[in-house]
C-alpha cells in the first residue's frame, strides 16, 4: 500500500503540467476554468482535437490507437494535473471514457481501427442511448427495436436522457434485436451515426432552463451491420461492462469538476464572511472530506478493480454533490436567488439546481441501494411485479 509517486512519475507530472498550463494560458485560455457541460461546444471540440494531436487525449490507450500506453499512476497524475490546470469538461467524455474502453474490450480489430483513433483525435464525438421513456431506472425494459435488413441494422424506438446528443457524431444504443424477448435477453449493442434522417434529437429543458439532456427518436435509423459490439443478443453484457468503465479513471476526471465547485464555494464563503460560521465550516469540512474519500475510493477501485468501493461509488458522489449544491446556496444566502448571469454565483446556483438530477440519472439512489444490497450484501432480490414485463 503506497500513495506516493516515483521520481519518474513525478517527471511525467511535470511534463503533463507544463503542457496543460501552456495550452490553457495560451491558445485555449478561454476554456480555462470552464465548468458548464453545455457551454462553448465548438471550442471544446477544438480542445479535444488539440489534446489528440498532442497525444494527451486517451493516454491509457495503446499507442497504435492514439494513446500513449500510460500506466495507471500516470493516468491518475494526468487527471490531477488536468484539474489543477483548470481544464474544461471533456466534450467527448462518452467517447473517451465509456465507448472507447468498451471497444477496446469487446471490439473486433476492424472496429478498434475504425473508431478508436477518431475518438483519440477528437474528430468523432459520442453520446449514449440507454434510458427509454417509461422505463426510468429499469434498464432491462428496453423497447427500442433493431432488425437486420441486408447489410444494415434498422433501429426504431426512442431513447431519453441522452446527454449532449446535440454535439455528438455517434450514438451507442442498446436495442432489442430478438422480437418477443424480455428483460436483459435478446438485446444488442449498436453504434449509429447521429447525422442521418432516421434520427431526430429533441432537447429536454431541465430545472435550470438549460438543455443538457435530449430525447432521441429513431425512425428507421440505420447503421452498417458490423457496427455492433459483441454478438447479437450480447447487448446486456456489453452494456453492463460499459457501465463498469464509468468507475475507472474517468471518476478522477469527474472529481476534478467537483473540486472546482468546492473551491468556488470556499471562495464565496471567504468573500461574504460565511467562512466564520461554525455550521458552514462543518459543512465545508464534510464536503472536503467527502471529496477526498472519493479520490481515495477511486484509487482503491483502480488498484483493486473488483473492490467493494466500486459498487458504492455512484450513490456516494451523487449524494455528495447534491449536498454540495445545498451548501453552495446556504453560503450564498439570498444573493444566490439573484445571482447575475455568468457569475460564479450563477454557476453555483446552477449546481444547486442541476445536482437534483445527480441522484436520479444513471441509476437513482434507490436503485443503487438495491444493487448494493443485492450484489454487495447478498440480500434477497426485490420482487418484480407481474403487471408488466
Amino acid at each position, binding site marked *: 500500500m503506497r500513495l506516493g509517486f516515483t521520481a519518474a512519475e513525478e517527471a511525467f507530472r511535470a511534463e503533463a503540467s507544463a503542457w496543460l498550463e501552456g495550452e490553457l494560458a495560451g491558445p485555449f485560455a478561454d476554456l480555462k476554468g470552464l465548468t458548464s457541460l453545455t457551454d462553448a461546444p465548438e471550442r471544446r471540440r477544438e480542445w479535444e482535437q488539440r489534446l489528440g494531436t498532442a497525444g494527451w487525449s486517451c493516454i491509457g490507450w495503446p499507442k497504435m490507437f492514439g494513446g500513449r500506453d500510460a500506466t495507471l499512476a500516470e493516468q491518475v497524475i494526468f487527471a490531477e494535473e488536468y484539474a489543477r490546470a483548470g481544464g474544461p469538461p471533456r466534450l467527448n467524455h462518452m467517447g473517451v471514457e465509456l465507448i472507447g474502453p468498451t471497444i477496446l474490450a469487446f471490439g473486433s480489430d476492424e472496429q478498434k481501427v475504425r473508431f478508436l483513433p477518431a475518438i483519440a483525435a477528437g474528430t468523432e464525438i459520442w453520446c449514449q442511448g440507454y434510458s427509454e421513456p417509461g422505463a*426510468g431506472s429499469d434498464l432491462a*425494459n428496453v423497447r427500442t427495436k433493431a432488425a437486420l435488413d441486408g447489410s444494415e441494422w434498422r433501429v426504431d424506438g426512442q431513447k*431519453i436522457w441522452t446527454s449532449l446528443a446535440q454535439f455528438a457524431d455517434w450514438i451507442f444504443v442498446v436495442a432489442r434485436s430478438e422480437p418477443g424477448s424480455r428483460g436483459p435477453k435478446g438485446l444488442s449493442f449498436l453504434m449509429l451515426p447521429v447525422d442521418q434522417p432516421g434520427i431526430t434529437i429533441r432537447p*429536454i429543458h431541465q430545472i435550470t432552463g438549460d438543455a443538457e439532456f435530449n430525447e432521441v427518436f429513431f425512425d428507421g435509423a440505420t447503421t452498417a451491420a458490423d457496427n455492433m459490439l459483441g454478438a447479437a443478443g450480447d447487448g446486456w453484457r456489453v452494456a453492463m461492462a460499459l457501465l463498469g468503465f464509468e468507475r475507472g479513471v474517468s471518476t478522477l476526471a469527474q472529481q476534478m469538476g467537483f473540486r472546482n465547485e468546492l473551491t468556488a464555494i470556499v471562495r464565496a464563503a471567504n468573500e461574504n464572511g460565511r467562512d466564520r460560521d461554525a455550521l458552514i465550516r462543518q459543512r465545508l469540512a464534510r464536503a472536503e472530506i467527502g471529496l477526498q474519500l472519493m479520490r481515495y475510493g477511486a484509487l482503491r477501485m483502480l488498484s483493486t478493480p473488483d473492490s467493494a468501493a466500486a459498487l458504492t461509488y455512484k450513490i456516494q458522489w451523487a449524494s455528495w454533490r447534491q449536498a454540495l449544491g445545498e451548501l453552495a446556496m446556504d453560503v450564498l444566502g*439570498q444573493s444566490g436567488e*439573484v445571482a447575475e448571469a455568468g457569475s460564479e454565483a450563477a454557476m453555483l446556483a446552477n449546481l444547486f439546481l442541476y445536482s*437534483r438530477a445527480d441522484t436520479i*440519472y444513471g441509476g437513482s439512489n434507490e436503485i443503487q441501494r438495491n444493487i448494493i444490497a443485492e450484489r454487495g450484501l447478498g440480500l434477497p432480490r426485490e420482487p*418484480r411485479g407481474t403487471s408488466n414485463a
Partner: protein
Amino acid sequence: MHFAFTDEQAMIAETARGFFAGAATSERTRAAMAGGGIDRALWTAFAGEMGLAGVALPEAYGGSGLGMVEAAIVAEAAGALVAALPFLASSLLAGSAIAAGGSETQRETYLPAIASGTRIASFVEMGASGEGLAPHGAVADLFVVAIGGGVVIVDAADVAVEALPTMDATRPLARVRLGSAAIEPLDPVPALRAARSRGAVALAADSLGGAQALLDRTVAFAQDRVQFGRPIGSFQAVKHRLADMMVAIEQARSAVYWAACAIDEGSPDVALAVHSAKAFACDAYFDCAAAAIQLHGGIGFTWEHDAHLFFKRAQANRTLLGTPDQHREAVAALMLPRAA
C-alpha cells in the same frame, strides 16, 4: 383551548383553496413568471372580488379584521398552487407594518388601497449599504423600508428599483435603493415586529401549503407510475419517503397554526412560536420538494413539470426573512439567555 379550525375558518380555507385551484393554474403561473412574477388577473380577483388581500387588516381600513390564523389559511392555500401574487409583500409585510406602526392618517391613506389590491406595497430591510432586496419590488407602488433604527414609507417613484432575474420567478426580488426620497416615518418597533413575525408565519404557511401539495401530487404519481412491473408506490423506499414527508408536514401544520394563534392571542411565547414555525416549515418544504423531485424520477427535474416551481419557492422561502439556521439560533437564544 381548541386547536382546530372554527367553522368560519374551515369555510375560509375551503374558499381559498377552491379559488386558487381554479385560477392559479400552472399555465397562468408560468405566464406570470415570465411577466414580473404577478398574475394581474389573479391578484385583482384575489384582492377585489374575494377580498382576501385584506383578510388580516383592520375592518376600519377596508380589511376583514380577521387574524393571523386566517391570513395563514390564505397563505397556505396560495402556497399549494405556488401562486404568483404579492400577498406576502403587500399584505403581510408592508400592510402589517403600517397597521401596527402607522399613524391614524397613514393607516387611512395606505391600508384601504393595500386591502383592495389597488396599490401594491412591498417591504425591504436595508443594510448599511442603503439598499436591499424587496419581494415583488418591481411591481410595488410603495415600500415600507427598515433602515438604521427607523421604518419609513416611501413611494416607488422616489426610490431606485431594479428588477432582478430571480431563481423563484413566482416571487421575484428587486434591488431597492433609498436616495433622498420623501419619506414618512412609522413607529419602528411595532412596525418591524409585525412585518417580521407576520411575514415569517405567512412564509411558513406558504411552505406548509406547498409541501402538502407536493405530497398529494407525489402520492398520486407513485400510485400510477409502474416500474419493474409494480406501481412505484408499492416499493418501501418510496412509501417510507412519502411517510417521512407526511410526518414533517403534520409537524409543520402544528407549527404554523401555533405561531398564528400566538400572534393573535398575544401569547408570551410568540417569539418562540414564530421562530419555530419559520425554521421548521421552511425546512420541511425544502425536504418535501427535494423528495418530490427524487420520487418523480427524470420527469421531476424537467422544466415542463411543476416540481421545480415548488422547489425554487421552497428555497426562496428559506432565505427570505432569515434562514432556518438563524431562526433556530434565535430559539437557542431564548432557551439560553446567559450564553446568548
